[in-house]
């Protein structure tokens, strides 16, 4: 059963279309991430689910109950949608203590005083902020503020959590810590979660499913693994993964029953299938990730090393042949140096082919 359902949702600001005819269903208990570059409509989508924005047209429902539909005259305001929202800026009330920040929403629901206190204590415990209840937001670090915002959202015990880039204001270290906190929390509470981010690593690490958006449209909706291994189109291929996927323009040709991907600079042998789904001679783009290429030093090799960028756990090596740049990732450090000549071996199973015109995955 799907928890949240978006049907033909469109949002226009004047002449600008922020979200265009979007269909999406989010399953009960799912952790779904809306991923995309800034201005792709992901935050607008989240705010429409929350009721902070109204769709220009389309229908929105939750648990089979319609939340928004202009046609049938239904508009359920945010406070009646039973959801929690975490803002990028945390939106903590600066003039209230941590306790008050968490309890204010509960107080309006006519919950008994001692029950509220108990709840505040429990959620602060959960986000590891025991004993901070009398502090003001300005007396907390960024990470602690973030936890208060999280605690406030949890305290309401809503069935749906909406999060708008909650980690983007934290420094890199804290962000990694908070990711595992969030993942743990989701497992414990099992609330249906919609998470917005432009950080593909965050999306890959946290989500059950990722919806990649661009210019108000869904580019692909898939589990992280599928999204990474078989990007449905060039946009997703380019957007997900770091370093960026290698994209080579060329065509498939066959020589004596063997297939090759070729362009003026490179020639990559392909799996010896009986036939290839890609018609030989057709102009296509091949995509292969940097970790699916291995590299060996060979003074008479075809490729020259353009740059070597060691980063501790891995080293990114950029090689060049003719006009073609290829990025290779190796683990740890390497003895290879700039201007060394090398050979490349491509993992045949991991190559994807895209139509040059439609930019869609062929195989």
């Amino acid at each position, binding site marked *: 059963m799907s928890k949240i359902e978006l049907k033909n949702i469109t949002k226009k600001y004047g002449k600008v279309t922020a979200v265009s005819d979007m269909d999406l269903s989010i399953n009960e208990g799912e952790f779904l991430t809306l991923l995309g570059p800034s201005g792709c409509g992901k935050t607008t989508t989240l705010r429409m689910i929350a009721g902070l924005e109204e769709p220009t047209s389309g229908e929105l429902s939750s648990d089979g109950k319609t939340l928004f539909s202009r046609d049938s005259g239904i508009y359920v305001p*945010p406070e009646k949608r039973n959801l929690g929202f975490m803002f990028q800026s945390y939106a903590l009330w600066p003039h209230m203590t941590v306790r008050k920040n968490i309890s204010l929403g509960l107080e309006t629901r006519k919950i008994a005083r001692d029950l509220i206190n108990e709840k505040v204590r429990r959620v602060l415990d959960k986000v590891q902020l025991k004993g901070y209840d009398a502090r003001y937001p300005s007396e907390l670090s960024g990470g602690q503020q973030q936890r208060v915002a999280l605690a406030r959202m949890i305290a309401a015990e809503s069935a749906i959590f909406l999060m708008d880039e909650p980690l983007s204001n934290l420094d890199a270290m804290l962000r990694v810590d908070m990711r595992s906190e969030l993942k743990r929390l989701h497992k414990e509470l099992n609330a249906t979660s919609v998470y917005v981010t432009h950080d593909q690593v965050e999306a890959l690490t946290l989500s059950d499913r990722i919806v990649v958006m661009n210019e108000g449209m869904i580019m692909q909706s898939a589990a992280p693994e599928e999204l990474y291994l078989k990007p449905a189109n060039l946009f997703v291929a380019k957007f997900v993964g770091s370093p960026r996927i290698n994209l080579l323009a060329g065509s498939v040709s066959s020589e004596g029953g063997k297939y090759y991907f070729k362009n003026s600079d490179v020639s990559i042998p392909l799996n010896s299938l009986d036939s290839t789904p890609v018609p030989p001679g057709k102009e296509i783009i091949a995509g292969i990730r940097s970790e699916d290429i291995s590299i060996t030093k060979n003074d008479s090799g075809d490729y020259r090393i353009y740059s070597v960028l060691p980063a501790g756990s891995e080293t990114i090596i950029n090689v060049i042949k003719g006009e073609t740049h290829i990025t290779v990732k190796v683990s740890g450090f390497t003895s290879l140096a700039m201007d060394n000549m090398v050979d490349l071996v491509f993992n045949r199973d991991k190559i994807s082919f895209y139509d040059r015109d439609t930019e869609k995955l062929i195989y």
Partner: protein
Amino acid sequence: MQQKIQFYTSKLKSKPEIILSIIFVAVFAFLIVVPFVQMIYTTLTYQSYDLRLERGAEEGAFTLFHYKRMFGSDLTKSHFLKPFWNSIKVGVSVTLIAMIIGSLLAWLFVRTDIPYRKFFQTIIVVPYMIPSWVIALAWQLFFQNTRTGGQAGVITALFGINIPDWLSYGFVPIVICLALHYYSYTFLLMSGALRTIDSELEEAGSIGGLTRSQILMKITFPLVLPALGSSFVLTVTRSMGTFGTPALLGLPVRFFTIPTQIYAMINSRNMGDGFVLALVLIILAATFISINNKIIGVRKSFVTMKGKGFRSNPMKLGKLRPFLLVVLLIFILCLIVFPIVMLAWSTFMLLPDDYSFSNLTMHFWAGKSDATIASGEPGVFLNKGIIGGTINSIKLGVIAAVVNAFLGLLIGYTVVKNRGTKLSQVIEAVAFAPYVFPSIAFSAIYLSMFSRSVGPIPALYGTFSLMVLIVIVKNLPFSSRSGISAMLQVDKSLEETASIQGIPFMKRFRLIILPLCKSGFLSGMILTFITAMRELSLVILLVTPSTRLLTTMIFSYETQEQEQHSNAVTLILLLIIIMANVLIKVLVNRKSEETMNLG
């Protein structure tokens, strides 16, 4: 159709900003747009006053009579052209002088190593707080001559020199007195602007090989141009529209400006002609504002530059330092110390032009009614009228302050939450409209509009409520502006997160929005209080004996040549205003607020 209605009603319930904007549109239409339309309508119809001038005229019938009279008859010269040119002359002269003084002072305090900066900066803005016509009162005390029948001023009385008319009354003293008030506007705006300019920008120019004057003209000047533009518009529109000073110093020699001419006409019930002149004043103000917006509007962004790596390098004055210090001290003596001391001194003088010590008396402060002195007016402390006026003034100030502060914040909320919609623009524009109405004309319209009951509102003529209403409406431009800027500083997610949690609007407003806007809210409140306290031209037509205010009492004592009473009441007014200002400084960080509320 039914679904549509259902959709919008359910939406309305959860969107207070939409309900508020509907209310504001309706209320503003009634309080601002209707009066304006009525004003135009009055100019196009015969009024009862006109019946004896035009044979066969019928009250309320359409006519261009007033326009013909004002712009194309033998009255044109005396009733339109002369006051018009006087206003322009006064406005432009005042503005030039005020801007020169204000800019120089701003530069001196922000950019040089002049000593005792803090002290001077506080003193120098005193004229901004007190009513503009207080300086005119003081001027009379010094420079009045005997020719118009009044008592002689200090100079004539002590030295026997008879001051020539041009220095006692009319153009010259009006310009001087107004310039000595309005320089404070330029000063505040310019010091704000100068403070945001990184002196590295100027240093970069000098490294680039520009001379001092080239730096001034090519770098500094363009950067402060927006502030200069605002100062110009503010000063020119206000000095052309002001009533008190031209009334005190101009009327005795029949030197009319548009506002005093309007006052004279409306006082004699000649509404039609008065409103034609009011329209002229409105058009003039609107013209100056739109010219400023055209020329400078696009450059506004300069002012809001980030002060990143900000560094201000004060210029060394060197030998000029002691000299400028002396000039400043003399300026302050003449501007603030002498006038106030003189006002105070005069209240102890039994005969107004006898400066000997034997002439001193406490009568005007504590004396019982004595028919031989001041037509029997008792001293200030025993004077029921003055005590009543003080209470009225404070009451007016407090009510207006509270109402305006709340309205301003609600308007700010509505405008900011609806940002980007037509509705939001309309509300913002209409709330600003009272700015261009000359106070005299505005009160004249209210007078005629509320002299009978309108809808649910009973006839308000002669009531205190009418004065409260007009002061609130006239202050809307400032309170809505400060409300908008206060609301812009509150991140919208702070309220959204509350509304998602189901916290109702009233509670959100009280617990979240209000506390977050507290400092702007409080300073806006006190500023409105001060403006209301010193209001004269807006209420002069509306007061009745039971609703007298301090300002109108000063004016009427002055016209009855009871100088001691008038000056004593002025001192009381100044005392209250200065106390309110002290309060403002204690309550809020003043630096940012002063410039903001200049609009």
